């Protein structure tokens, strides 16, 4: 898989790369920033839509303990909803999973209701001890390898953050 392919169609290439690296099952709650990627994963690999993000984290914890490398996709507003699930379940029990979290409230997204969580997303995750990488279309290959090493290799949680325009969103 080449970086050029990622640049042409980041959503299909990211989903394929995750599956090729053994990630799954996929859980999520929809987000406009993630939509093309979310729908691609749903179509190609199956995805369980969960009505609240912390429930998706809980289900992923169960899937991880059954031996999988689960992925949870959510908007960063759902990170607020999920904070206790991360702080009192995922982190202290050392449960591996990959979080893919959109960065609402980060430029060029100026929606007022999202600005606070936009500012808090990385500090919250890092404060929990969950390493983060902000996805870049020209580095997706290496970033999936990074996630695979942490989640699959070191059995730790990790988070890939999705900037507003990565999958085509426009302000």
């Amino acid at each position: 898989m080449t970086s050029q392919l990622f640049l042409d169609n980041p959503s299909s290439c990211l989903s394929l790369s995750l599956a090729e690296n053994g990630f799954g099952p996929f859980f999520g709650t929809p987000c406009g920033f993630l939509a093309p990627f979310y729908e691609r994963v749903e179509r190609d690999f199956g995805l369980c839509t969960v009505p609240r993000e912390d429930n998706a984290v809980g289900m992923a914890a169960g899937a991880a303990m059954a031996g999988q490398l689960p992925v949870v996709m959510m908007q960063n507003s759902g990170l607020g909803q999920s904070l206790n699930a991360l702080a009192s379940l995922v982190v202290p029990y050392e449960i591996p999973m990959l979080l893919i979290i959109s960065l609402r409230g980060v430029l060029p997204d100026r929606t007022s209701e999202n600005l606070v969580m936009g500012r808090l997303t990385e500090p919250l995750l890092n404060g929990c001890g969950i390493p983060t990488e902000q996805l870049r279309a020209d580095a997706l290959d290496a970033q999936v390898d990074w996630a695979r090493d942490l989640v699959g290799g070191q059995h730790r949680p990790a988070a890939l953050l999705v900037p507003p325009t990565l999958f085509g969103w426009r302000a």
Partner: protein
Amino acid sequence: MNKASAIRAIISATTNEPIVFTTGYSCRIAQAIADRPNHFYMTGSMGLATSIATGVALVTGGPTVVVDGDGSLLMNPAALVTAGAMSNLGLLHVVLDDGLYASTGGQSTPSGRTDLGALARACGYDQVLRVAEDDAFAAALSDVLAHRTTPVFIHCVLSAHDSAVPPRVSAHLGEHQRRFRHHIQSTMTTKV
């Protein structure tokens, strides 16, 4: 029936099935009765025991038990929606309903007018049972574990008090999780 007698019945009726115990006294009581590797003691994240058990059942395809409480179910009824949506999920959802937040001092739960079984049925659970006696609960457990492969909800109405509460879960939580994970994986390889 009290919490300890109900948990004793669940432990007697199961062998290798993964069991997720909700936060509060359920974990502590289970650990004191028999600390088996098929037990997962969820000491925090109140409300998520059912979500965890759903994730386990989704992957293993086999029967998985969650021991929930009325307070924790009320905290996260969304978990019923997800489990109930999966018609072939081998989830046995037991709710031990004492009407109290027992581990925070015994405050009443605001469920006086809520029909927990009807909530589960409305979310798609295939079978909903309500029991108030130890014998009836034991019979329901053995029947469900032997025959059902769809989400089943057993509402246990507790009326007797529990005596002394056993000590907190003391295991290192990472080690505890890996014990459960290893158990599931070792029993899965013998299946299918």
